[in-house]
């Protein structure tokens, strides 16, 4: 029996309300006109944060060689942090011709002998999928031999996008880990955090608040996660999907199999963080908890406002243009508004219908939803008198030409912008951008061009 999930089923995921109109785009990237990661990358993203597990990439060197140590997914795991290591079978021509299975088996044995992880994820990749290496069998055998879970992850790059890969990663966890262990204790307020990868420590911006409220995070997929916890995830009372549409099918299945309801929310910006906490409390259905949460939210918002005070003057009357994609389209917009900036436009070219609706909601009628941001943003900066452009690196030149401040929304972040406290980090970075003289200065014409 193969553990390969049915890709088509995942693409047709019924829980995705805008899916119908976008299926084609999701499905087939256009040759020569595609950006973004592949399914393998997506699968890694969703599973990699388990620092107590080894992540073994069965493929040639490109897949891991270029990507290890790229994601700052933080962990409290006291053992060696395996997310900061790279394991790959680095298959050679010989393996391609004669199969890489033997090498894979040996690689697993090697990892067990040297690093003793609590589980091993084995990722198939384009080449090893094509040559038909049977990672299901090898994982089954390995699990028996070594007495720990070994999870085959069937997300070779060619099956599709990063987004799809994340779903495939989730499926693998569901199929091989969830429900294989019972928790020592349970509480009425046990939740799973799904799709929170704790990048730059985002999760830690709100997790202490959950603790304060008596809400226990039973398991995460997969930020600061532990294998033994995700194995017990079926005993949670609620699945909380954090800013990750892609895992909707996973939670649907968990609902079907274990009766766990789910909610989807964001912890980005003040309002969404508050809403998110309240949504969890309400979903857990305890009036006392809801009351406590309201109190906490009020306290935290007041505390945040106090700490944002020094920034108010900097942001007052400042207008921003936002050019990004996906849920950032509205989540960053919301956070900017929370800081007191006016968001005059946001790009929705690479956003889903749901995201666009949300963007409209946050920006109001006056706000511009840009369908062709590359062309529109320069014009809008002039028209609206914007002071700040938030976009990817290529748009830097637009900001310089207009002499306004720029913030790279794709810049590899080292600090978290999540939760209440993260908003302070965002405030600090945006203040630094607005006050930075570099954008005006660098636009000086050379003396010989005058």
């Amino acid at each position, binding site marked *: 029996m193969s553990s390969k999930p049915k890709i088509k089923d995942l693409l047709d995921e019924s829980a995705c309300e805008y899916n119908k109109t976008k299926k084609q785009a999701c499905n087939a990237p*256009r040759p020569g006109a595609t950006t973004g990661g592949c*399914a393998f990358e997506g699968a890694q993203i969703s599973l990699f944060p388990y620092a107590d597990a080894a992540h073994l990439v069965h493929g040639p*060197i490109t897949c891991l060689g270029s990507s290890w140590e790229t994601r700052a997914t933080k962990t409290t795991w006291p053992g060696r942090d395996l997310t900061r290591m790279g394991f*790959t*079978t680095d298959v050679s021509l010989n393996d*391609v011709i004669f199969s890489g299975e033997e090498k894979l088996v040996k690689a697993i044995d090697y990892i067990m002998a040297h690093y003793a992880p609590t589980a091993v994820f084995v990722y198939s990749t*384009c080449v090893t999928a094509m040559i038909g290496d049977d990672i299901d069998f090898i994982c089954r055998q390995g699990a028996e031999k070594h007495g720990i879970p070994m999870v085959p992850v069937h997300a070779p790059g060619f099956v599709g996008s990063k987004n799809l890969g994340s779903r495939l990663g989730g499926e693998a966890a569901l199929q091989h880990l969830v429900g294989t262990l019972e928790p020592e204790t349970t509480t009425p307020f046990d939740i799973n955090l799904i799709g929170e990868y704790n990048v730059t420590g985002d999760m830690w911006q709100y997790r202490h608040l959950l603790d304060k409220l008596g809400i226990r995070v039973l398991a995460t997929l997969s930020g600061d996660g532990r294998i033994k916890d995700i194995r017990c995830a079926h005993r949670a009372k609620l699945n909380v999907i954090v800013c990750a549409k892609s895992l909707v099918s996973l939670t649907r299945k968990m609902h079907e199999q274990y009766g766990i309801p789910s909610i989807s929310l964001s912890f980005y910006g003040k309002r969404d963080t508050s809403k998110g906490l309240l949504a969890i409390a309400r979903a857990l259905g305890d009036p006392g908890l809801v009351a406590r949460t309201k109190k906490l939210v009020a306290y935290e918002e007041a505390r945040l406002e106090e700490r944002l005070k020094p920034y108010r003057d900097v942001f007052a009357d400042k207008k921003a243009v936002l050019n990004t994609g996906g849920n950032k389209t509205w989540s960053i917009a919301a956070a900017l508004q929370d800081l007191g900036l006016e968001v005059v436009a946001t790009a929705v070219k690479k956003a889903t219908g749901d995201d666009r609706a949300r963007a409209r909601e946050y920006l109001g009628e006056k706000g511009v939803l840009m369908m062709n941001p590359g062309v529109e943003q320069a014009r809008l900066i002039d028209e609206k008198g914007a002071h700040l452009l938030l976009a990817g690196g290529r748009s830097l030149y637009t900001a310089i030409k207009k002499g306004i401040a720029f913030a790279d929304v794709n810049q590899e972040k080292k600090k978290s912008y999540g939760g209440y406290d993260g908003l302070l980090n965002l405030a600090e970075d945006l203040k630094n951008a607005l006050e930075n003289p570099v954008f005006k200065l660098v636009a000086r014409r050379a003396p010989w061009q005058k």
Partner: protein
Amino acid sequence: MAEVTRKRDKPLQVNPVKLSQPMGATLAFSGVDRCMPLMHGAQGCTSFTKVFFTRHFCEPIAIQTTAVTDALAVLDGGGYSIVESVKNICKKTSPSLIGLHTTGLPETRGDDLRGVASKADFPLVYVNTPDYEGGFESGWALTCKALIEQLVAPAATVNDNKLVLLPHVSLTPIEVERIKELIESFGFNVLALPDLSTSLDGHLGEKQTALSSGGISVEEIKALGNAGLVISVGESMRESAKVLLQKNAGMRHHHFSHLQGLEASDSLVELLLAETGFNGVTPKVERWRQRLQDAMLDSHFSLGQTRILVVGEPDQLAGTCRILHDAGGRVTLAVSSVDSPQLEKIWAKRVLVGDLEDAEAAADEYDLIVGNCHCKALAHRLRKGLVLRGFPNWEEVGNPLKNDLLYEGGAYFLYETANVAEEMRGKTV
């Protein structure tokens, strides 16, 4: 010289240094002006590569993918996705060249690249660079060879003032520029193939395009055949020089394993003096040689008591180990990403084709590491000094301007390394 361990006895790479062949190809195409590197494979390879180089160079990187998918993977044979890619690329931009290079996926499938390319109605150079063979260095070298084979027009006459420089993959943009400058000071017109010194050197251009900006032009490549002299740097570039020489029987070729340190720099100058009949160099070159001599002396005491691990590509190791050795540095271990004939010539006590786990296992053999940013965690954990060199370096900005070559770069490199060594000793005392 060194004790070389070529054969890996491990069934896997743990914390790899090795980078893939298609990535080397991408970088090589980035040294051709207004080129669009097109990686043939699933979209992820391209995405990883783009992010990798964007972070290393702090520059937008031009690259596209044929985005081979599941369904097509079995049926297509490559033709469709390549032709579609070219069409889609040309809708948005007008590249002077499309640089088609493969990954493992189409190679496993057995795509007929040559066949597809021969039917392309667009300037296109193709190269087979499966990632289950070779590595970063060979991907670059194969691409350079393909550019020559497929573009350079055969010629019968030579222009003695024209010189072709073939740099290996690990030479930084500024290093290529500095080699060109030195050679130019002898009156040559120098063309580097590929030429990152004008494309990925980190300069603010007039406007951004989706293509590489700077580098050697396609027209220039086509006309390389009448150059009087060819200089290749790095073992990996010998083959490119060979195919270039086949374009014109009148060309002459000189090879340098590397250009680091006093002796290697002297050899290049010696050659140029001999070729031109000049009897001297510019005062600036003369001065920098004296400064390198002084740097060797100023750093020798510190380096003489420092045991060093150098990590990188074979051609990079050759130069770096040699200059360190010359100033007294004790290169006890060199970890090479892949095998190469260069390895035998490396000035190190021990050379190992391996990964950073191997380096970690040998932790008590060295005090200081010269290597890429993956070595940072290692250096931190083991309390070693670290000089960041090679791909990737995501920890620092300004990578394209790191110059370790010839007299000037050598002086700065030795000073930097000696300073890191002292800083490290100061900490551990």
